[in-house]
């Protein structure tokens, strides 16, 4: 069942047929690549040891659910922070924390992964604001993920 009106971010869509049509990969256990805790942007310390000089992933909350291969394909070898630009409150602190990743933790790169729904763009905007106010520059890539886990675009910010 698909509904065509309302906010694209909250619109009901049913992918059951597509999701069950193909068995993903092996069916075996996929090893977690998470190398830290906590991960939510309100809870993290941007200068925690695992952020120092790291390749950091800033992802919208929904990303890990949409992308079947999130752990091996995206998270492996990276430190992470997660947030919801639509629902989270107090997002000003996110800008400060991202800025601190760049200036204090001296991260190597930042990859911002968002869902294709328009409200998710806010996370890219937060990262851009933080990067503009930071003294140190690093490569920042924006990745847009489709609702069924396809990579729709990659772009350097």
């Amino acid at each position, binding site marked *: 069942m698909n509904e065509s009106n309302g906010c694209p971010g909250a619109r009901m869509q049913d992918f059951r047929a597509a999701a069950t049509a193909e068995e993903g990969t092996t069916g075996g256990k996929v090893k977690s690549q998470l190398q830290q805790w906590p991960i939510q942007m309100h809870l993290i310390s941007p200068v925690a040891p695992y952020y120092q000089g790291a390749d950091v992933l800033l992802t919208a909350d929904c990303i890990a659910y949409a992308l079947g291969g999130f752990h091996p394909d995206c998270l492996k070898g990276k430190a992470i922070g997660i947030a919801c630009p639509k629902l989270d409150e107090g997002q000003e602190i996110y800008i400060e924390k991202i800025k601190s990743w760049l200036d204090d933790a001296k991260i*190597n*790169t930042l*990859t911002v992964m968002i869902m294709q729904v328009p409200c998710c763009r806010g996370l890219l905007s937060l990262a851009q604001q933080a990067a503009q106010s930071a003294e140190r*520059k*690093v490569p920042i*890539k924006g990745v847009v993920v489709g609702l069924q886990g396809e990579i729709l675009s990659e*772009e*350097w910010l």
Partner: protein
Amino acid sequence: MGQYLNTNIKEIIDQFPPVADVLKEYDIGCVTCSLGTCLFKDIVGIHDLAPDEEAALMAGIARIISPDREIVIPAVERKSKPKAGEAGYSPPIRKLVDEHRLIKRWVAVIPKFIETLDVSTESGRQLIRTGIDFIQSYADKYHHAKEEAILFKYFDEHLDIIKIMCADHENARGRVKEMLLALDKRDKEKLATQLKAYQELLTEHVKKEDEILYRWMDRNLSMTQIGELFSRFREKDEEFGNTPQKYQELIAQLEKQLNAEEA
């Protein structure tokens, strides 16, 4: 027929000359390459044709190699990263492309620079030294050194495409030596010949790097390597201080001067 993928392109062209025309159709310029020792599979991978174009190219070449029976040359394995064109150049590679812009501006004024060569006066010789200094200090010590000492180290330096780029750099250095000798001898004609040769060399060299080499490198660099490169280029820029700015101003001044003389 997979054996052809591991054969030097020059050998394939020598054995089957019409293959050159098929390559040209896809803007693959191996025919004019000075070495031609790249393996066929590397060429297909480096040029990163769309799957349908690659299939058509392979089919075209297969028909030439074996006109009497249908053969299939297997598709070339490559990394499944999106094309660099989709994401644009990565920031460190973008930096090199931006440096090329200034080099291209210099290369574009070389014909007028040649027309106004004056080896008989000190002011004329000084202008010539200024042009040569741009080649030595900006194009070579600042830009080419970044490639040779940093970027190329992330790849197998025995790959032909990298050997060709380094050979171009050496060739350019040889041209500069000849320019300086010609200037010492106040040999205007020889100076003009070397400048013209440098112009032709760099025009092709920059095009190869911008359109083929850098895009291939971007597809093969990991995010971690891109961050490292960005950081190492920044360190190199700090080492050079305001040198890039100085040469930006120099080229702007040369353009103004030479265009004014033309008007």
